[in-house]
């Protein structure tokens, strides 16, 4: 699952994932994300940090206190200031800074 409020990034990541072994779904509205995570048996979440209304940090904290999602791996991607510290403190498994190299992104996702 990829969640970002920027549709262009969602589309781009979806396209680069086509040639990998990942099966991808996307969500642009962070408020709908947690419900979908429960319903769709998601293993891996690539999450943006700065999103309107419900931020990636809030979502991470929700995930980390939800026993039903305790196996979910989360990688945060962000271009924000101090994003890495925020993400890791909130319980992310890994972090990648935007703009990233697509090779790095895929490699890091595969190693989660």
């Amino acid at each position, binding site marked *: 699952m990829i969640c970002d409020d*920027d549709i*262009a*990034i969602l*589309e*781009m*990541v979806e*396209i*680069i994932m086509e040639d990998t072994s990942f099966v991808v779904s996307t969500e642009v509205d962070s408020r709908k994300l947690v419900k979908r995570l429960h319903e769709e048996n998601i293993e891996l979440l690539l999450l943006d940090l*700065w999103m309107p209304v419900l931020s990636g940090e809030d979502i991470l904290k929700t995930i980390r206190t939800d026993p039903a999602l305790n196996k979910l791996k989360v990688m945060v991607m962000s*271009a*924000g*200031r*101090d994003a890495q*510290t925020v993400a890791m403190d909130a319980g992310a498994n890994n972090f990648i800074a*935007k*703009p*990233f*190299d*697509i*090779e790095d992104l895929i490699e890091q996702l595969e190693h989660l």
Partner: protein
Amino acid sequence: MKTDQFPINGNEHASFNLLKSALDSSITGIIITDNNLPDNPIIYCNKAFEKLSGYHRSELIGRNCRFLQGRERDQKARKDLREAISKGESIVTEIRNYKRNGELFWNELHISPIKDDAGIVSHFVGVQNDVTRRKNAEENLIFERNAVEQKVKARTEELKANQEYLDGIVQTVRQGLLVLDPQLNVISANDFFFRTFKVENRDTIGKKLYKLGNGQWDIVGLKVLLEQLLPTNNPVLDFEVEHDFPHIGKKLMLLNAHRIELNGKYKDRILLAIEDITEYRAAEVRKDEFLSVSSHELKTPLTTIKGYYQTLNKLIGKDLSPKALNIFEKTGQQIERLQRIISDLLDMSRIETGNLELHKESLDFDQLISEVVTESRNLFPSHQILVQGKLGKTVLGDESQLVQVLHNLISNAIKYSPNEQKISIHLSEVSNFAKLSVTDYGLGIAMEDQKRIFDRFYRASDIQKHFPGMGVGLYISEQIILHHGGTLWVDSEPGKGATFSFTLPIATRKVNHE
């Protein structure tokens, strides 16, 4: 000072340490310079010299002593010194130096050369005494003797003229000004003060400073500084007071106080300048937020562009014609360039808000430099990049940030010497610091610009029109070096080129192989 800075045997440690303690307990400033290194840099200073000059050791090591003379480069004493040093002779002279806070002090300087076995001057030892008091006393004495008669005659008129002159200035400035006596009673205030605080003469004049208003200036720290001002002559600089003031509400005020000086003589009066910087500070905060948000907004579409570009490269990169491949590669380079510019903006907002994070590790400095130089040689085929010297030791630092500093200095050196074919990099060990200098032989930097080029967005005026750039590189570089416990500075003569040097503390522990 670490004992490993000088070649000594184990059994000499005790006497060496004794010697070191003796030097540090001396009330006389002592420095040692290394005449074998370029520009004869300071390699040792004792505690008394730090106290005397106001500079921390880390800001002194590696530099040539001349920077202590500030802009007074044409003193006669300097010429004498230069002569003695070039001939390797000892000399005693009195020279006007400046402390870190800009305060003038008269330095009675004894310089002696140290010769090696071959009779070549390897070091100079400088023994320094602050003789400002004596000098001032001498000057005052001469002044008094010559002027007494004349003075009596002219005194009344002069005072009157001075008073009018001062009143003119005091009423014109756009800052609140108060004159205080030694007990911190307000003797006078300018109109701007009354307007700023919406108060009147009778609320102010004759009152104690810390009883004004609702006690806004009744701050222990401020009181101590002001009470010490007259006895010690130390000004109060940029003291910030945030307070809910009567009539005008919550404001941020910046206070500066100096002893009043008339005709070169100090009076027992304090001039306190008060500036409302509430709006200014709010604008600073807004600007930093803007920098942070805009760099985030710029990076978001760049993420998409970069992702698509790399995908396209994978899909069709191999099938392109040479011309298309060339265009494709250039596009990639410009994407990287755009990313660097945006990173600079973000770095700057981080520095501004004190959020610059260092991820320090032990670094092989020689290797780091060699990698950056190799990369620079590919990027700038126009110039030959000469590298001299080796460190052979590790420094503790953030690799990507130090690489950024090196890139900045090298690309600046090349950018500002367009008609030259080479730049030089010199690496050396100075006391427990690594010192790196990047020299170009290009345009050079005017004296008045040399301090300000480290300000953000500052670009030397005549240069601005001809060269691209945002004026943030040196600002970021200096901040990075400061955060590493080092110092970055420039030596330059217009028309002859510039040398940018920085120091970094050498790691004391061995590299941890984890």
